[in-house]
């Protein structure tokens, strides 16, 4: 179990989301970056669907009430302070053991969103098949809200080693080649109401930069910098129909909104374009003031990108290495080199 000591950012419990209830108005929710979520879970040997803590703005300060193994993914670094006051670093893209009484102090989340996984998974009740927080209707996660000071977070499946911090230390893993944030244009498909917009609006969307405004949360990002005009024959309203994360809808003022994980299930604004699934995690990392560019692709390219993302994730999970093992590949490699030098000397 861990306790939240300080929480100045926006931290919520998230997993892979809550599909299957959108016909009842229940949003998909789930991690803004499912790839980072799955990597965090892999670093503590959780199943990919285990619930983690999604962190935005700045990470919390946590106190270990029992020995735990945690992992960080994303642009966030931390340090671990022991009861005696000893400090050790807690880098991202690695797992770290905490002894009872240790404090994990996390810094600023620079890439927009980062994840903290706990071996065994965050234990909150399953609500409609998911542990993801949906704050607007106050369900899922911890009491349907963001984490706050004094919250105690239980661990779902206690590993048998619990109680032995040294055994947890031996399970620490690291990811040698972490994913880098992609700054290339975000790939979009023509949206269901593409023809409701002028050709100028479409060419501007796919060639000029838009800027993320301060109206940015888990429901969506409002974008500034370009006005996308509706074709006057259609106007700015449609009969409400289903929407999905990644849809770029444009209300009457011409300022687009990109929908994210917690978006409503239906909407009444025309959708000019839809971000492909493979690039959707990148929207979760977008910060106010950041410029975004979009480029058109077709469905075949979207599917190819989806396969590539899945293959890269699998390769990264396969590349995880123990942080301390005597059989660490780097250590063996170094040892062989030294042996080789010694042998050469003997031969001479």
């Amino acid at each position, binding site marked *: 179990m861990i306790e939240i000591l300080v929480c100045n950012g926006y931290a919520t419990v998230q997993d892979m989301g809550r599909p299957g209830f959108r016909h009842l108005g229940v949003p998909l929710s789930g991690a803004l970056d499912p790839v980072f979520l799955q990597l965090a879970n892999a670093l503590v040997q959780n199943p990919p669907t285990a619930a983690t803590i999604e962190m935005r703005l700045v990470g919390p300060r946590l106190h270990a009430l029992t020995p735990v193994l945690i992992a960080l993914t994303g642009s966030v670094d931390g340090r671990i302070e022991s009861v005696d006051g000893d400090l050790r670093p807690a880098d991202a893209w690695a797992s770290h053991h905490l002894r009872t009484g240790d404090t994990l102090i996390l810094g600023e989340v620079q890439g927009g969103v980062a994840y903290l996984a706990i071996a065994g998974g965050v234990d909150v009740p399953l609500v409609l098949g998911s542990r993801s927080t949906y704050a607007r209707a106050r369900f899922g996660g911890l009491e349907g809200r963001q984490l706050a000071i004094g919250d105690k977070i239980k661990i779902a499946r206690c590993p048998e080693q619990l109680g032995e911090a040294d055994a947890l230390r031996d399970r620490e893993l690291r990811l040698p080649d972490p994913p880098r944030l992609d700054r290339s244009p975000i790939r979009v498909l023509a949206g269901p109401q593409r023809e409701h917009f002028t050709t100028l609006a479409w060419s501007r969307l796919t060639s000029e930069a838009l800027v993320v405004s301060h109206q940015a949360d888990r429901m969506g990002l409002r974008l500034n910098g370009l006005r996308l005009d509706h074709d006057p024959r259609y106007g700015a309203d449609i009969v409400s129909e289903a929407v*999905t994360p990644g849809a770029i809808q444009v209300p009457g003022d011409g300022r687009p909104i990109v929908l994210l994980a917690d978006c409503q*299930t239906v909407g009444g604004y025309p959708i000019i374009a839809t971000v492909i699934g493979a690039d959707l995690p990148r929207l979760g990392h977008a910060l106010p003031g950041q410029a975004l560019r979009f480029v058109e692709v077709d469905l075949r390219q979207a599917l190819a990108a989806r396969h590539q993302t899945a293959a890269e994730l699998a390769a990264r999970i396969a590349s995880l290495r123990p942080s301390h093992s005597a059989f660490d590949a780097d250590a063996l490699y170094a040892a062989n080199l030294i042996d080789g030098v010694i042998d050469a000397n003997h031969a001479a």
Partner: protein
Amino acid sequence: MKPRLRDLGDTALTLELGDRVDVALNARVIAARDALGMLPGITDVVPTYCSLTVHYDPAILSRDELAENLCRAAELTLFQGTSVGTLAARWQIPVLFGGEHGPDLATVARATGRSESSVVETLCGAELAVFMIGFMPGFPYLGELPEGLRLPRRTTPRSDVPPHSVAIAGAQAAIYPWPSPGGWHLLGQTPLRMFDLDQPERPALLAAGDTVRFAPIGKHEFADLAAAVDAGELPRAKFLAT
């Protein structure tokens, strides 16, 4: 209008049967939903006013196979007409009208040139279709209202509509499951929960394709029903019309 397919990104496909709010058109959407059935790889099937959107996992179900099935479902609705499917339920929803529970009843009466009791009577005399669920979990869009009750939205939306409020605007009615901002006219309140996580099989009381008739109740009955709902002693089936 001829049915059209539109891709909503690489994980959703929308079958569009028309472009207006219309009971008969919505009934065809519901019939298409019932005809489609569940294919492996479909995650959500979302009926709206005049479209049916299917969210799918392209690693399991190809877009073309889904498109074929959606087209077949659309064709079936033309042959089967718009008969209401077996999945639909007819609900009788108890409502306490006026006073603090329906703060806009007097305004609506004045604006429509009726007495308050005539507004209630006219509303309760109509059988309303559940066009779709959206905006918030369990929020039903109901219609169409009798002509004499149709008003534009309030000029100033409320920031806090109380949960369970029954509201009207234009040709539509709705019931708010949660506290929320809203610009519709509030006529009353139901003691029933529109969204209940204690019923995980179907947390929303209403589903698209159901029909709703409002039934006026008094203060005492409202209090009794509300207490029974809180105690979990009120089966939903009690409010199915026979």
